[in-house]
């Protein structure tokens, strides 16, 4: 117990826990509707685009979190526009933008050599490097995302399950879809520093599919998925601290372990 409290003597660990817990709440909230829409890959796509945002931020000397948000939100808007015109499948749109985001980031890196190390912290996450300014941005965005999620829960739910019927319920489907895409983009931006761009998708999806195995009811599955993400985050951070492992990867592996454990227990 004393060893556990020792963790919180360090300010960077306190910040890490706060940032992690905020991400553990919002990632599964958004992830639940991604699973319904069968758009799990969108988080990975936006996280690759986020790298472009990071590179721009580092290049211009601005907090990368801000440039990342701008890049992901603009890309999310473009994805939704392309997806909704039905001439290009959602899958193809994502398959085009994912490598595009990475390619642009690589070009920017080569143009301004010198921040490869910083970029790697965004690729694989560096929760212990969360600054006080980052924490305030994560906190503000986290509350904003959660409030919008609660306010528009019915609209997001109806539109995700059945877009055509939602329209006949008077829901402005196009607007709701764009709003949802913005929430995904912001969640990716917020989560990037915590778990890393390459691992965000896992944190948005794995707790959700874990919860969906054990509960009856969509709303209940959202609540349980937040719980699963919380446990993964706390256990992952503790293990990573004491075993000296990368935090993002440990958090994701913890959530996969929980998924595997529940899958096995369900079959017994």
């Amino acid at each position: 117990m004393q060893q556990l409290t020792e963790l919180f003597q360090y300010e960077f660990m306190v910040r890490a826990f706060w940032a992690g817990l905020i991400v553990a709440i919002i990632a599964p909230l958004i992830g639940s509707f991604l699973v319904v829409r069968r758009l799990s890959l969108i988080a990975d796509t936006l996280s690759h685009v986020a790298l472009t945002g990071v590179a721009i931020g580092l290049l211009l000397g601005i907090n990368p979190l801000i440039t990342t948000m701008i890049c992901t939100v603009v890309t999310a808007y473009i994805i939704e526009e392309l997806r909704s015109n039905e001439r290009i499948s959602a899958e193809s749109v994502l398959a085009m933008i994912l490598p595009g985001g990475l390619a642009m980031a690589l070009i920017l890196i080569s143009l301004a050599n010198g921040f490869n190390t910083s970029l790697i912290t965004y690729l694989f996450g560096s929760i212990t490097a969360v600054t006080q300014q980052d924490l305030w941005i994560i906190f503000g965005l986290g509350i904003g995302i959660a409030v919008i999620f609660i306010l528009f829960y019915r609209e997001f739910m109806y539109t995700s399950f059945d877009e055509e019927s939602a329209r006949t319920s008077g829901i402005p489907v196009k607007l709701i879809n764009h709003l949802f895409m913005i929430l995904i983009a912001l969640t990716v931006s917020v989560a990037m520093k915590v778990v890393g761009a390459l691992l965000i998708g896992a944190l948005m999806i794995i707790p959700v599919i874990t919860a969906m195995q054990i509960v009856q009811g969509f709303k209940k599955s959202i609540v349980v998925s937040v719980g699963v993400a919380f446990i993964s985050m706390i256990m992952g951070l503790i293990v990573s601290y004491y075993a000296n492992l990368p935090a993002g990867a440990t958090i994701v592996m913890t959530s996969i372990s929980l998924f595997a454990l529940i899958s096995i227990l369900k079959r017994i």
Partner: protein
Amino acid sequence: MDTIIPHAIEIKNLSFSYEKEQVLTNVNCKIDVGSYVGIVGHNGSGKSTLLKLILGILQPDKGKVYLFGKDNSVSIEWSKIGYVSQKAGISISHVPITVDEVVKMEKVSDYAVDEALTSVHMLKFKHKLLRELSGGQQQRIFIARALVKKPQLLILDEPTVGVDVKTQETFYELLSRLNTEQNITLLLVSHDLHTISHKVKTVIQLDRKTYPYNLTSCNVNHIHSPYAAAH
């Protein structure tokens, strides 16, 4: 002085094309309140396009659609319209959503949910997972969701696809009951002319220029059909 009751649906000189492909040409149709109408036609005949034009999801190249006397390009009173989409059940197989949650996607009270489920004889399944129900039962739940806001017009797009013949019978009995007992105007789209022709009161056949059933108020000219071209 007599009050003029507007038609549930009135279509005037409606034309629509997807880029260069003309799908509907100069369609005129009036559907009275309390009617039970089936729109039939083969794949690609424009049935679903016509539905989307009626619901304002697509905009016509030419012409107008009036719902209860109001131009649907200006505004639609969604509270009067229930819709059961062909895609309603697509996203449910991998998600643990309950019957109760499906109906509550409409903004209604618990009492209204119970009432709607009772009207389709599905109240006892309220807390069940939707994916645990049969295709026919799921379709009833989607109808309950459309009915929960007490619509005056219920539109169903291919409601019996994937449903066995026996279940189809009870399904059509339910629709007839809704039409006669609650005076809900029903508009049903199907590719199955044989079945539909025995169930509904009026048929709009999008493949032909003539109408084999008691369709008197519609004038549908449709140039896309090979059948129409041959005759």
